[in-house]
């Protein structure tokens, strides 16, 4: 019995889908998109930490990283290795400050010797080449730096270290999970073979060193970190961090990406539900006689509802299954893009439970929509349904058509729509949703394209960052900058390690200069005295420090109390930075030397000529980095690609749904068109009333959608701004003026095609369409 019933459901379900295949196709498409983007967002968010865990496991990576001065490092390294809580250590990586020049560009570099063989406890993966022999004249460049310079394996390069310069070949790219990728982490990381290291001056030319340690009991991670800190001699700076810091630092961006995807997915789901409600209600009318026959021949209302649910649920289920596959593929690509920034290998956390849960929610929502749409169906007896079909009583609003006001077109058009306010409002809502989606995509794309591409976004009013090699005295560097024609202003920047409220961080000290550095405050105010500092958003997020707090700042061995005046947006080192006046630093460390200079060119100056003159004046001991090279927005390519896919995808889906809804609406009016033709309405009159009906659908949708889309987008971007910091909405008027009419093509066609067919049909044919 049950099998026969299932077969009956199947027979009707298949027949219905074959008859209205495009409706099923729209449902599959929308469910696929909703599932794909929501699933991809959720899976990506969990895959990023999973990728770190998997890469760390594969490399047998350390749990803690320790950084200190090169001179103190060997002794500290030996003591840490002896700690009972430490099970193993990485090799010790000495670090020289220098420059790498390749592909016509140069970057400030942190140069370290590469172990002779892959270490047992490691953080490095060599990509695109073999682990080089110790005597090879080669260097390995971190992936982000290689991309910035546009070079790869086989490219020639010059590495300038603490005590020399070596011409060599880049043998491979290297991924290093102890650092975020350049330019998120500066300077660029360069590994050289032992022979090259010696040619550059060896350990004696190193300034800092770092090594990693594996901890026996991870529950003792913090205690072990504190124990290591206590091993450092007094006055020796030491930085200890969890290797996962790079993952955590990017988490806000990952969450923002996830948020975008889930939001877009929800747009798709809502569109899907509107569509299901609209088509189900339309089916109750279109197939009223069929449903009447079913009821008259023994089908219960419940069974009829099951049939309708099957007709909608099957395409949605197909969409969900295909969407799950698409979600895994999309998440794989996005995870790969994200984790590359941290030197990780993508490991997809397929999270079957997440995907199953998302799919179940979409499917249940679809079935609930059918249930909602069939509310009230069944109040008519099977006999009445058979005789006259199931008809919802038209609304009293239809009474607005009265003699004496306006032409026949607007009056008839409005009456056609107002007679079915439910269907009309659904069509308007779908139109509204589709237009809001398009507006959202256009504005967000424009905003994100603008965001970060201008140095001023990051507070950088300068054109160049100028690093100088160790052999050049800071005073000579400043003199050269001051004496070069074409340079409007320059400013030394002191970059040191510091501890603020017990947290290790980079500290930057500068002379306040609005012409060169404009700190984009997220909260608080600017620095008003030497005893005040600003902290980057990343540091504020990871430490909980906030404006108004007085905390202990330690630079070297000199402590002082400072007031946190504000939190600002900072790209460098994921915002794990504090900024104070250089007079504060020089008060603590009178012999401190600038790490680099920032330079602004005169308006209209020939940048290449100025650069050439500047480099000649110091015999090439400057490293000039144009500021635009330093401000690649993290995940910008992923965001833009996602927006592009979703913008087009959702516009297409919204267009399909709008097409379908307006088509159903026009289809339902076929019967009325038939009557009107039979009583003498001319084609021109009917076309005018249908044009008015289309206008009455579209105009309110546009009028509502434009402000709603702009306000909603502004609100969402403001929310994003809370995470990323100071993202200003860009309103691309020209792009919107093009996108909105394009988006309206689908609903206009959806109305025009069936309306045209109804107008062309004979009156009897049109009346006969009432099934």
């Amino acid at each position, binding site marked *: 019995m049950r099998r026969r019933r299932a077969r009956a459901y199947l027979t009707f379900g298949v027949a219905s889908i074959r008859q209205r295949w495009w409706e099923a196709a729209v449902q599959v498409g929308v469910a696929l998109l909703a599932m794909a983007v929501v699933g991809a967002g959720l899976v990506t968010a969990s895959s990023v930490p999973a990728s770190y865990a998997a890469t760390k496991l594969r490399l047998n990576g350390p749990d803690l990283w320790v950084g200190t001065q090169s001179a103190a490092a060997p002794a500290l390294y030996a003591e840490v290795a002896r700690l009972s809580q430490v099970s193993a250590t990485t090799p010790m990586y000495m670090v020289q400050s220098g420059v790498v020049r390749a592909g016509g560009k140069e970057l400030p570099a942190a140069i370290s010797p590469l172990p002779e063989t892959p270490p047992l406890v490691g953080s490095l993966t060599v990509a695109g080449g073999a682990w080089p022999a110790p005597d090879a004249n080669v260097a390995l460049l971190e992936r982000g730096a290689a991309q910035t310079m546009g070079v790869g394996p086989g490219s020639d390069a010059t590495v300038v270290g603490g005590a020399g310069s070596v011409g060599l070949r880049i043998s491979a790219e290297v991924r290093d999970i102890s650092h975020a990728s350049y330019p998120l982490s500066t300077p660029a990381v360069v590994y050289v073979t032992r022979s090259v290291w010696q040619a550059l001056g060896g350990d004696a030319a190193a300034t800092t060193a770092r090594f990693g340690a594996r901890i026996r009991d991870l529950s003792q991670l913090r205690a072990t970190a504190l124990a290591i800190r206590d091993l450092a001699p007094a006055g020796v700076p030491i930085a200890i961090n969890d290797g996962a810091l790079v993952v955590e630092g990017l988490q806000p961006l990952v969450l923002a990406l996830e948020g975008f995807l889930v939001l877009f997915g929800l747009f798709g789901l809502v569109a899907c539900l509107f569509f299901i409600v609209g088509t189900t209600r339309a089916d109750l009318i279109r197939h009223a006689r069929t449903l009447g026959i079913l009821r008259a021949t023994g089908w219960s209302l419940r069974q009829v509802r099951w049939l309708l649910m099957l007709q909608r649920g099957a395409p949605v289920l197909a969409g969900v299954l295909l969407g799950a596959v698409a979600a895994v593929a999309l998440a794989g690509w996005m995870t790969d893009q994200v984790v590359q920034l941290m030197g990780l290998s993508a490991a997809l956390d397929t999270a079957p439970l997440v995907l199953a849960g998302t799919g179940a929610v979409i499917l249940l929502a679809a079935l609930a929509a059918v249930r909602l749409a069939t509310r009230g169906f069944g109040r008519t007896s099977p006999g009445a349904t058979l005789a006259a079909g199931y008809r919802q009583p038209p609304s009293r609003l239809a009474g607005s058509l*009265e003699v004496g006001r306006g032409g026949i077109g607007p*009056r008839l058009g409005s009456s056609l729509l107002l007679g079915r306010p439910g269907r009309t409002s659904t069509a308007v809502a779908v139109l509204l949703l589709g237009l809001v989606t398009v507006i959202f995509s256009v504005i967000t794309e424009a905003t994100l394209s603008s965001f970060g591409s201008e140095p001023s976004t990051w507070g950088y009013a300068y054109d160049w960052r100028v690093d100088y090699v160790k052999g050049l005295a800071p005073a000579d560097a400043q003199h050269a900058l001051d004496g070069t024609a074409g340079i409007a202003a320059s400013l030394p920047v002191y970059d040191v390690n510091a501890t603020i409220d017990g947290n290790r961080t980079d500290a930057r000290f500068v002379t306040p200069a609005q012409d060169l550095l404009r700190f984009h405050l997220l909260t608080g105010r600017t620095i008003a005295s030497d005893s005040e500092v600003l902290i980057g958003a990343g540091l504020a997020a990871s430490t909980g420090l906030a404006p108004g707090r007085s905390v202990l700042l330690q630079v070297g061995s000199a402590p002082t109390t400072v007031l946190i005046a504000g939190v600002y947006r900072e790209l460098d080192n994921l915002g794990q930075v504090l900024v104070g006046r250089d007079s504060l630093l020089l008060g603590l460390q009178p012999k401190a030397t600038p790490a680099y200079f920032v330079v602004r060119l005169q308006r209209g100056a020939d940048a290449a000529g100025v650069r050439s003159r500047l480099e000649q004046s110091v015999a090439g001991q400057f490293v000039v980095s144009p500021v635009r090279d330093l401000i690649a927005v993290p995940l910008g390519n992923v965001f833009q690609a996602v927006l592009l896919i979703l913008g087009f995808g959702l516009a297409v889906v919204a267009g399909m749904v709008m097409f379908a809804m307006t088509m159903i609406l026009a289809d339902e009016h076929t019967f009325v068109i038939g009557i009107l033709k039979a009583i*003498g309405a001319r084609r021109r009159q009917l076309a005018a009333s249908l044009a008015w009906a289309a206008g009455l659908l579209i105009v309110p949708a546009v009028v509502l959608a434009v402000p709603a889309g702009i306000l909603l987008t502004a609100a969402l971007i403001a929310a994003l701004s809370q995470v990323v910091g100071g993202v200003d909405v860009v309103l691309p008027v020209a792009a919107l003026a093009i996108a909105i009419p394009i988006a309206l093509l689908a609903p206009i066609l959806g109305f025009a095609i069936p309306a045209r067919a109804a107008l062309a049909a*004979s009156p009897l044919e049109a009346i006969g369409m009432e099934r």
Partner: protein
Amino acid sequence: MLKYDIDSEIEPLTAPMVAAHGLTKLFSGGGADLRAVSDVSFELEPGIFAAITGPSGSGKSTLLHLLGGIEKPSSGEIDVAGTAVHALGESALAKFRLMQVGFIFQAFHLIPNLTIFNNVAMPGLLAGVASAALRDRVLRLLETVGIRDKADRLPHELSGGQQQRAAIARALVNDPQVILADEPTGNLDSAAGDAVLQLLGELNDRGKTLLMVTHDARIAGWAGKQLRMRDGRLVTTAET
């Protein structure tokens, strides 16, 4: 010498209100043509109440649709109120349906979204009748058919008989010379059906030419003339 023209002597004083000559309608489909109306010819004088009768599938509704300009003939000629309907184009046909004939359908075919007033007013609106005049005319017609108090109701709120009365009022709003009714009592009980027939009879008494399709011999008895059809052909024409 003058010749006596006998034909002019017997020519009717008025031309036929409805005339069909060699009227044929073929429907194509399923690989075979269906001859729904085959070589039908007849003439009806003005002011007549005629019934087209015959069994189901005999082509009587198709004939009515052809006369009303809702269907186009495959061949033959139709003349209604002096208009050569068979020669009209799309726009002229619409104007003919609007001004010269009033159609009454078995299933009423009122527009469900519109009030009874607006349904009745619709042909007047389409014809561009002035608002005040149209309002008066609609209310007077609703009064005539006995549903003046239902003017603001929607069709589904009325009984079948009331809906058919509204359809009759709609058919009359542009004061056509010919009323075409396709099984006007088919969806009504006998009391409501008799009331509708009474109403049609009164219209005929006021000079309207009435052509009604029915398969019911009792209802056909209301008409003054019967055109009997079978298999698409007009088999007899009889005065009753």
